[in-house]
């Protein structure tokens, strides 16, 4: 029973690390391949895409009403001068 426990632990180590390494190694390949294929299929300028993503996510996660308020605040400020 006790020795079974140790052998179970060894099994877990072997099959576990085996699976983790096999899966993540496979994922390295799949990811690299995916990037190549996707970037061939989709015509998409990377730099612009990245900055667009960044800007887009800021713009989209800030709700329009907040943008509106800011605009209003700035307009008001400009008007006050």
């Amino acid at each position, binding site marked *: 029973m*006790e020795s079974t426990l140790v052998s179970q*632990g060894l099994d*877990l180590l072997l099959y576990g690390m085996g699976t983790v390494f096999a899966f*993540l190694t496979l994922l390295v390949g799949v990811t690299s391949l995916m990037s190549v294929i996707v*970037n061939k299929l989709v015509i998409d300028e990377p730099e612009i895409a990245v900055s667009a993503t960044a800007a887009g996510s800021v713009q989209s*996660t800030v709700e329009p009403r907040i943008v509106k308020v800011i605009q209003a605040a700035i307009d008001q400020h400009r008007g006050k001068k």
Partner: protein
Amino acid sequence: MESLISLWASSGLAQMQFDQLIMMIVGLGLLFLAISKGFEPLLLVPIGFGTILANVPGAGFDAAPVYDAMGHMQSPGGLLYYIYHGGIETGLFPLMIFMGVGAMTDFGPLLANPKTLLLGAAAQVGIFTTVLGAVALSHFGILDFSIREAASIGIIGGADGPTAIFVTSKLAPDLLGAIAVAAYSYMAMVPIIQPPIMRALTTPAERQITMQQLRPVTKAERIVFPLALLVLVAMLLPDAAPLLGMFCFGNLMRECGVVNRLSDTAQNALINIVTIFLGLGVGSKMSAEKFLNPETMGILALGAVAFCIGTASGVLMAKLMNLFAKHKVNPLIGAAGVSAVPMAARVANKVGLESNPQNFLLMHAMGPNVAGVIGSAVAAGVMINLVGGM
């Protein structure tokens, strides 16, 4: 007079057991670590508070509801009972957290340099050697862990709180308190645990390696990656599908750009609500009987070992990769493979700056850092599958 006796009999002092007092002090200690030392406060504040609540004598925070024969409620259950059985035993809360973490994760650095995934794989060695350590302790009769308990202890080395909670709630729920506390505490101690190991295993020259700038990643790659990962998991490792599926779902919501309001809620209101309840629910398992025993000491010791081995494995793997690769990686980023996002990546950056103040490793370390999340979710899937059948 009877009322006075009833009041006294129901007072905490009359019912208080010594154990509960100690556990309340443990709870206060966790709160001190969280608030004063900044140890993962988002989880340790609720866990610490939950620990205190669960040990209030006679308050019934984890009492089950009582129903009569007709199914009508006779007395309601305690708050922590509902939280634990509704959200943790079912696995719902860790999965929702994983969705939110996915929505917060930027896979860009990983996509720019996919081979850093191997660093995330290597760091999981900590998990499995710790399992071996736990069964060895059992074998030599020092402590008594079943294989299910050993597997749950190992997952502390994954340096990923929700994964640890998810696995432990399935394999060894009685250890949930100790394992969650160990996992979050060590994640908070990454800046203390890792640097000596990183320095010991690397030469100054290695620590100064400058990595080439990461290529820009397109939006399309970012969208397809979580789907590719999901399909791969579905084909090969269904047991990892709950954790990684929700993780990929969150990430897809983030990257696809058309459901920003959902992604925003997953990253804020929803994950915050679930975090509060997850922490309280974990606290409800912090009873003296389950926490104040030699096994907990063993768990804490083994957890520390797991972190150290994971860190070392990541660094050594990076050095191994450098033997073959054209573009050298700075071995310090291997330590980030344990996950503990983003703390471990920051530690790698900081140790790197000590050797070369111009060498910013942060973005390079984010690749192995998120790879570590994938790696430990894979390890979790393997363990649930194998140990469940043992």
